[in-house]
């Protein structure tokens, strides 16, 4: 097996995911799914459950496949190629990994099978208004009461929040952090769903005196923070893979357009300046592919520092690259890529989402710089 590449089995997983998405989420189909609730294809989602990819990131002892890294990356690349709308990243990767990491055995057995079965959609509510990309809860507070807590606060840009059945809410208690699991239907939870620039759904959530029983606290303290950081890294790795898939597809479209479109009697792909710009995209794609592969492997690491360093390295790079890639691909196309009916413009928008979702370039550069520096002659992954 080649270093930092997909194995034969992983490639088969990737191919079957591609076939699934091609038959259920072609560009035409997805444009229809997008405009009617829940904003994605239930049939495609059921297929994902059916073929088992919803089990990938979960531990084996609760029905999972135990592979939050490279296998998830293989699936996410295909999701990125298809700009698929199903809440795989939100429910399985982000929500699922939070529970998988933070929950005790009892909760695991209660929730994980339902998530894998596609019926429970937990969305991780990371961000709060006015706190930018901060990962710790600032304004969302849990106040102790006789039995349990009362939650108050607001979360924003919750990926998959528009169609979630549950929210994972990190909240500040007097001297600790709680990770709470709140059904979307709970009294006092107000959900305002909307569309992101990458066509995926998201939501703002207002929490007003939301009552919380003790069993709704998945974990607290260091463990809660670790669960969020872990799920965030798994999500970052998955999103990087998604971006690689999106870039790959956009480069294919760009290449084909350059080869087909004629100007002054010749294909515009024969103009050297355009060729070199297309090559710049290729060079970028290969860098992103490398960092995505590295992040996917780091996700299975026990050493938190290396995991976080490699995931933030990948996302810092890809956050910038994805956005610039989209800009240049549009420019290479000309007018056609400015139209909503062209697949390429959806890919370009998805790259914009990937650029800003789960932390932008500055956030991840700073997060990377806070990890222990390279020591001596060691490699980054030593």
């Amino acid at each position, binding site marked *: 097996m080649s270093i930092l590449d997909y194995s034969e089995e992983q490639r088969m997983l990737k191919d079957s995911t591609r076939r699934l998405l091609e038959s259920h989420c072609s560009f035409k189909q997805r444009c229809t799914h997008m405009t009617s609730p829940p904003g994605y294809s239930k049939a495609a989602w059921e297929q994902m459950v059916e073929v088992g990819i919803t089990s990938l990131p979960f531990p084996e002892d609760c029905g999972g496949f135990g592979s939050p890294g490279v296998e998830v990356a293989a699936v996410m690349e295909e999701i990125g190629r298809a700009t698929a709308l199903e809440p795989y990243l939100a429910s399985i990767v982000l929500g699922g990994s939070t529970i998988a990491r933070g929950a005790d055995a009892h909760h695991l057995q209660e929730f994980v099978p339902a998530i894998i079965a596609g019926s429970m959609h937990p969305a991780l509510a990371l*961000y709060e208004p*006015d706190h930018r990309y901060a990962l710790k809860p600032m304004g969302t507070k849990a106040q102790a009461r006789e039995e349990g807590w009362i939650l108050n606060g607001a979360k924003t*840009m919750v990926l998959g929040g528009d169609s979630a059945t549950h929210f994972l809410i990190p909240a500040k208690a007097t001297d600790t952090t709680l990770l709470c699991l709140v059904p979307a239907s709970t009294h006092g939870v107000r959900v305002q769903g909307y569309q992101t620039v990458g066509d995926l759904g998201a939501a*703002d959530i207002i929490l007003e005196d939301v009552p919380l029983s003790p069993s709704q606290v998945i974990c607290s303290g260091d463990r809660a923070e670790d669960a969020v950081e872990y799920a965030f890294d798994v999500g970052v790795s998955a999103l990087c893979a998604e971006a690689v898939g999106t870039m790959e597809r956009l480069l294919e479209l760009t290449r084909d357009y350059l080869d087909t479109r004629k100007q002054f*009697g010749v294909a515009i792909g024969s103009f050297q300046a355009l060729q070199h710009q297309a090559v710049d995209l290729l060079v970028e794609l290969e860098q992103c592919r490398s960092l995505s592969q590295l992040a996917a492997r780091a996700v299975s690491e026990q050493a938190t520092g290396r995991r976080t360093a490699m995931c933030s390295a990948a996302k810092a790079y890809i956050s910038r690259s994805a956005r610039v890639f989209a800009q240049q691909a549009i*420019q290479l196309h000309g007018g056609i890529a*400015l*139209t*909503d009916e062209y697949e390429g413009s959806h890919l370009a928008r998805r790259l914009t989402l990937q650029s800003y*979702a789960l932390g932008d370039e500055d956030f991840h550069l700073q997060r990377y710089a806070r990890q222990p520096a390279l020591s001596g002659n060691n490699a980054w992954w030593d």
Partner: protein
Amino acid sequence: MQVYSEADTRFRAEVRAFIAEALPAEMARKARSGVALNREDYFGWQRILAEQGWLTPTWPAEHGGCGWTPIQQHIFEVESHLAGAPRIIPFGIKMVGPVIIHFGNEAQKAAYLPGIREATTWWCQGFSEPGAGSDLASLRTRAERDGDHYVINGQKTWTTYAQYADMIFFLARTKPDAPRKQEGISFFVARMDTPGITVRPITTLDGGHEINETFFEDVRIPAENLIGEENKGWSYAKFLLSNERAGIARVGEVRELIRDLHDMTESQPVGNGSLLDDPAFLRRVTSAEIDALAHEVTTLRLLSREQESGRPNPLTSVLKIRGSEVLGRLAELQMEVEGPLAACFRPSPAGDPELPQALLRPALKTGRYLNYRKFGIFGGTTEIQKNILAKTVLDLKG
């Protein structure tokens, strides 16, 4: 520090005072909010300018011009943007108007100029075709003479604001067997309600509707709708496109975005401080501001050189290239001010009441960021501008 001449400084004060007085507050609020403007929003402001005699500043005096120099036009554009005035739609005033003045007959002048001058007729431009963008001369729309009519068949694309238009000016091929493809093209005008003209909206990647496809199916137009001579349309088009270069630098928009960027950064709360406390972000804001400054000064330098020499300057392509880069970067930075909310999106800028209040501004900014991708493409792509500069200024052979 003296950059404008004293006369120009006085002119700026005069423009500023007039706009402050004449621009309705509600009109400015709507334009500055970033939502899509409609026909009446644009025409409302144009009529106010028309009354002042400022709508057609570059036209000859006898047709209602007011003799502004290029620098004065520039000052007017900047002040208008800063005040939040709707932008001037160029198709009548800057494009077809001068063509009719130079090449039209008296009947055409009488028929069309008043509607432009008084902001009652909305014009759109039918130049680009699906197979003829940068390579405009390969257009395929045909016009066949049939008695005292021409019959038009073909398809135009990127027709900006065709949905508002009363009239269209367009190029069509009248002599398909001409030896060179630039020959045998003619310049026509037509009423948009002529039978056989249909408009299909194009939704752009920001979800907006500015551009359209325009189809001509056996459209019969009177022969007097031909402007100038038959088969000479290419030279009129070149004349028209050279006028188009005046606002190419888009300094008004740049200034508006820069003014707001600093304020937005400072008022964007991050924890207990503001985004201005983030040295990495501040560095990008500062650097973009200096890029914008360099672009504005370059614009002034080149305009004033043109003004002095009376000749178009091929270096103007530099303004098109940098203008689109600077605007694109500013729109990107304004979007990034929003942090995670930059990822939100409102497919229909006309207004979606479901979007939470706090996301309205981010959604508009993200939409504008996407919309601004057009500046490197329309009106001569960046690559075309570089070809021009390589050939004309650097004198390198193709």
